[in-house]
């Protein structure tokens, strides 16, 4: 009896496996994003942007004669989950390419899995330098690493007359990496670095850190974290009477959400962003930007999400372009094809350059970085 059951089980499993591969009428792309937990807002925006790209591609007939199918999984803003989700997408859903995983710590947790299963991933948001410098040839990043942000910011440092700067950063690879890269650039410019305060990714009360910063003799605070924590920081800074210039980095600020939720507390704050949905004509590809924004609004999503969702849109288009170039939906071919693509991203052309140790370089594109300022509840562009 047990043997008979075992046999039936084996047949069922075999059928399922054969059916799973031979019958594939779609090309799958794995999406590994935080849909719950501390980064839920950002991850959801990215996924919604990704869906717009998939629908656009499918409406035009798909790629290689097949429709693309996004297999979306929630990594719960947790590195352990992010690695598990990547494994599930690769081994069980058999996706030949992934996009993810929003946060630097999440992406770094996924990276060993990419090596293990030799599957490439488009990194759409993460900015820790480590991602493209540790020698993982399956990484293709379209977001700017924090050193690129720091370099872009370098030009405006003199105009803002920065003298002494404190940091308040999220206590993970993203935040600490940003503090390091920006400190280095600023020290070269002769700016004094004061406090470097950190906060837990789920922390809601930053009053203690802000009180400490309030008492320091710096005139500027660089803040790095995602939109939900930023909102809290602006509110709490205002409540504490903190009157320093606040500049945020990382491109996950969703300025319109900050304006809506933090109100007047957001006025006077500056933000380094990677997309300009407020000024489509000033973006590198106005036509594509306008299409994306119109589509985003048509779907009833809040405009605030644009600064984040465009990454998902560009990420999927990047993956699709590589699949098309590869001519087949296989990980090794797609990985090779990433080096040959050139697509018009919403934030500049996506062309990968080699980064990291020789022989196992990661791909890194060179996106633009902009500085905006919130004044009277409106977004204004500052020239870098």
């Amino acid at each position, binding site marked *: 009896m047990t043997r008979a059951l075992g046999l039936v089980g084996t047949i069922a499993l075999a059928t399922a496996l054969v059916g799973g591969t031979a019958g594939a009428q779609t090309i799958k792309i794995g999406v590994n994003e935080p849909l719950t937990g501390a980064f839920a807002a950002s991850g959801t925006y990215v996924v919604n942007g990704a869906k717009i790209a998939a629908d656009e591609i499918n409406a035009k007939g798909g790629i290689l004669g097949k429709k693309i199918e996004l297999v979306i999984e929630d990594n719960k803003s947790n590195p352990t989950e992010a690695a598990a989700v990547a494994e599930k997408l690769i081994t069980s859903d058999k996706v030949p390419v992934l996009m993810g995983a929003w946060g630097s710590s999440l992406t770094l947790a996924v990276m060993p899995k990419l090596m293990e299963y030799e599957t490439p991933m488009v990194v759409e948001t993460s900015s820790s330098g480590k991602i493209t410098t540790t020698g993982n040839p399956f990484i293709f990043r379209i977001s700017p690493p924090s050193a690129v942000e720091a370099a872009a910011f370098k030009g405006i440092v003199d105009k803002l007359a920065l003298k002494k700067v404190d940091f308040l950063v999220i206590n993970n690879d993203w935040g600490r990496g940003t503090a390091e890269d920006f400190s280095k650039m600023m020290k070269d410019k002769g700016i004094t670095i004061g406090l470097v305060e950190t906060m837990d990714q*789920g*922390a809601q*009360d930053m009053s*203690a850190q802000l009180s400490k910063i*309030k008492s320091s003799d710096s005139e500027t605070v660089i803040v790095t974290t995602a939109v939900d924590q930023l909102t809290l920081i602006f509110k709490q800074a205002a*409540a504490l009477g903190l009157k320093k210039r606040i500049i945020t980095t990382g491109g996950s600020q969703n300025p319109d959400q900050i304006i809506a939720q933090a109100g007047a507390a957001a006025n006077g704050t500056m933000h380094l962003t990677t997309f300009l949905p407020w000024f489509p004509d000033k973006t590198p590809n106005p036509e594509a930007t306008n299409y994306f924004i119109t589509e985003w609004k048509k779907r009833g999503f809040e405009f605030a999400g644009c600064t984040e969702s465009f990454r998902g849109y560009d990420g999927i288009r990047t993956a699709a372009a590589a699949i098309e170039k590869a001519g087949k939906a296989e990980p090794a071919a797609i990985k090779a094809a990433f080096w040959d693509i050139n697509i018009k991203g919403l934030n500049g052309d996506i062309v990968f350059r080699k980064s990291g140790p020789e022989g196992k370089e990661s791909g890194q594109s060179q996106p633009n970085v902009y500085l905006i300022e919130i004044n009277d509840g409106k977004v204004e562009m500052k020239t870098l």
Partner: protein
Amino acid sequence: MSEFLQHLVNMLVLGGTYALLGIGLTLIFGIMNVVNFTHGILYTFGAYIMFIVVQQFGLNFFLALPVAVLAGWLLGAAIELTLLRPLRGSDIDTTMLVMIGAWIAMQSGTLWIWGGVAKSVTTPFPEAPLVLGPVSVSWLRLFVLAAAAMLILVTYLLINKTSLGRAMRATFQDHDTASLMGVNVDMIYTSTFAIGSSLAAAAGALLGPVYVIFPQMGDLAAVKAFAIVILGGLGNITGAVIGGFILALAEELGAGYVSSGYRDAMGFVIIIAVLIFKPTGLFARAERVG
């Protein structure tokens, strides 16, 4: 010095809400011997009620508070009647597992209804803070502190000055004897759980507008509530209040003068110390528990 004063003010404001979180949990633990894993989600629930009443129905902020308290009371009573009453007499592990299940189910429920993106509530308080010399504090937080103090006082009076409170304390000491003396123990259990739940919902309703509202907001709050309860001694209301302020002080000074990266660890360092040196909590009286 001004930084230290600011830390103290922050501690007072934070401690008031920690105390509120702690007393609801300690009440349920002390009287019912139930490890209430739904405490955090009731906190979240209170915050969402606030969001619905103020943002979606556009009703008054001050009216929303009692609505949240009442909703928390009703949800607490419902949990007690449907989940805990049938399990009365089961061992503590079984109850704990059921409560963990209820927590996960309810958290997924909030996620399903409202999504993972954080919501915020507009308040009638001015955005400019109250400035007293070197110290500033927002009007909203002062109100939260006052409301928390009032709720703590009401709870204290309810337990120490009313016949319901006397019956609760009697049940806490010995539920068999209390039952023989004519105390309706079933009713006491339901009331206790409902009151504890309404306090959690009140804390959420008060803090939701201070922070932002999202389905997992209660997780950290619940962990802190457990810490406060351990600090103050199980079932000890005064202990929970003082425990709340001690935790807030440890976090503020820890983040301010030691390292902000370890802010949330500070409280737990204290708890480990308490558990080593005074395992029944800082303020546990010699009392008959079984």
